[in-house]
């Protein structure tokens, strides 16, 4: 029972090997699969790169818009305070001084028309008004005292406002709308850039179609690569133009 194999069995032909697929098919398939894989991978990669750039530009837009709000607040706070100072701190004092000055001048005109004690009273009143509008007191009011603000009617408050504003040119130079426009440009850039990923998504879609429908693989691949190229070129154009 040690060896049950007969001589006839040993001389029998070996069992047939399983059929081998034609060499042409084996060699021909991998490049097509690679084409699909490359299309899908490159599409995903390009979309990811564009997505990163979109995120950056989108953040820039948001940042600029928020800056424009802060600038608007800063600008408004500045002009409100400057107008408050000129019109409620300086102007009432200057007007009171102007009143004293006008009265002194008008009293000087009428004093010669009367005589005796009446004239003394008027001249006394005139002296008081002149003192009230004199340099000693008027020094506290640049609007009334400074030669630059003198005008035919008394003082030129507009010129004083201009000087108050120009004391801080940085505040005058604030332009929130300009900042917003810069934000708009960044936003439009981001949106247009992201829109190009729709074309790239179509390229990806044709890549999956190529894999799902081998009979039309070449046609789908051709369209897919064309769309991928179009999407990439569109992204570059948007990047350059925006």
């Amino acid at each position, binding site marked *: 029972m040690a060896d049950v194999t007969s001589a006839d069995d040993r001389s029998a032909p070996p069992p047939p090997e399983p059929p081998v697929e034609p060499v042409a098919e084996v060699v021909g398939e991998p490049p097509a699969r690679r084409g699909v894989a490359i299309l899908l991978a490159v599409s995903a990669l390009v979309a990811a790169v564009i997505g990163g750039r979109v995120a950056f530009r989108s953040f820039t837009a948001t940042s600029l818009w928020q800056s424009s709000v802060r600038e608007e607040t800063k600008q408004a706070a500045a002009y409100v305070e400057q107008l408050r100072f*000129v019109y409620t701190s300086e102007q009432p004092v200057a007007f009171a001084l102007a009143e004293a000055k006008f009265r002194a001048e008008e009293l000087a005109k009428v004093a010669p028309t009367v005589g005796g004690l009446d004239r003394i009273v008027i001249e006394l009143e005139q002296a008081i008004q002149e003192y009230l509008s004199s340099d000693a007191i008027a020094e506290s009011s640049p609007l009334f005292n400074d030669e630059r603000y003198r005008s035919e009617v008394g003082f030129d408050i507009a010129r004083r406002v201009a000087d108050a504003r120009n004391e801080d040119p940085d505040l005058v130079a604030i332009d929130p709308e300009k900042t917003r426009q810069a934000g708009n440009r960044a936003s439009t850039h981001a949106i247009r850039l992201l829109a190009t990923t729709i074309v790239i998504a179509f390229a990806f879609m044709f890549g999956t179609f190529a894999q799902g429908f081998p009979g039309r693989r070449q046609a789908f691949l051709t369209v897919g690569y064309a769309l991928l190229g179009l999407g990439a070129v569109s992204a570059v154009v948007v990047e350059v133009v925006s």
Partner: protein
Amino acid sequence: MEVEVAHGVEGRGKLQKWLAVLVGISAVVAASLATLDLHSSKRYEDFSGRSTRLSVNLFGRIAGSSFPFTGEGISSQIALFRAIQASSREVVSTVEPEAEALEAALARADKAAADRLTELAATIGDVPAPDSGVDPLVRSVIGTSEDDLRGLAEQQNRMLDEATRYSNRSSRAIFALSLVALATVLLGLAAVMGARSGAAPLVGGAGAFLVIAIGWGLTAFLE
């Protein structure tokens, strides 16, 4: 994932073809919805920012324009009081013979001073001229009228409404995008399970999610 899916299932039946089609469509729908969301959210941010700026501008103009207006009013009152005093002296000069000359002279002086003060007071509320050196913004603030303020308030409200509209549109796009994500998860699961494991319902569910996502995304335009 899609590469492996396609690699493993190529040409192996209807289910796998549906898988390939739905994965491709998911990519396109996702990219479209992401673009819609970015557009809507950026518009929301812009309108929201402009609305906030208009609020600040509105309050700034209300405060800024009130100072010259109030200053002119108070100064005019002072000038008027001086004119009333002049009139009183004139009256006194006619009924008090002893003080006639003095009061008449003081009345003339006060009347002339009152006229000059009135003239000066009128310049305080004036909008500075372009050649005054005052920057255009502050000239515009000082010259703000009631109609301007009403217009700004209406504009601010309109911006806020627009911001809300785009915010809703963005929310719809995000929800639709979430549905697409669910659909791709189902497609991935179906690919892993393979055709023999009853993946057809998963692919069907993914297709349904995609259809709903597209529909929901389109409703964003109704906002």
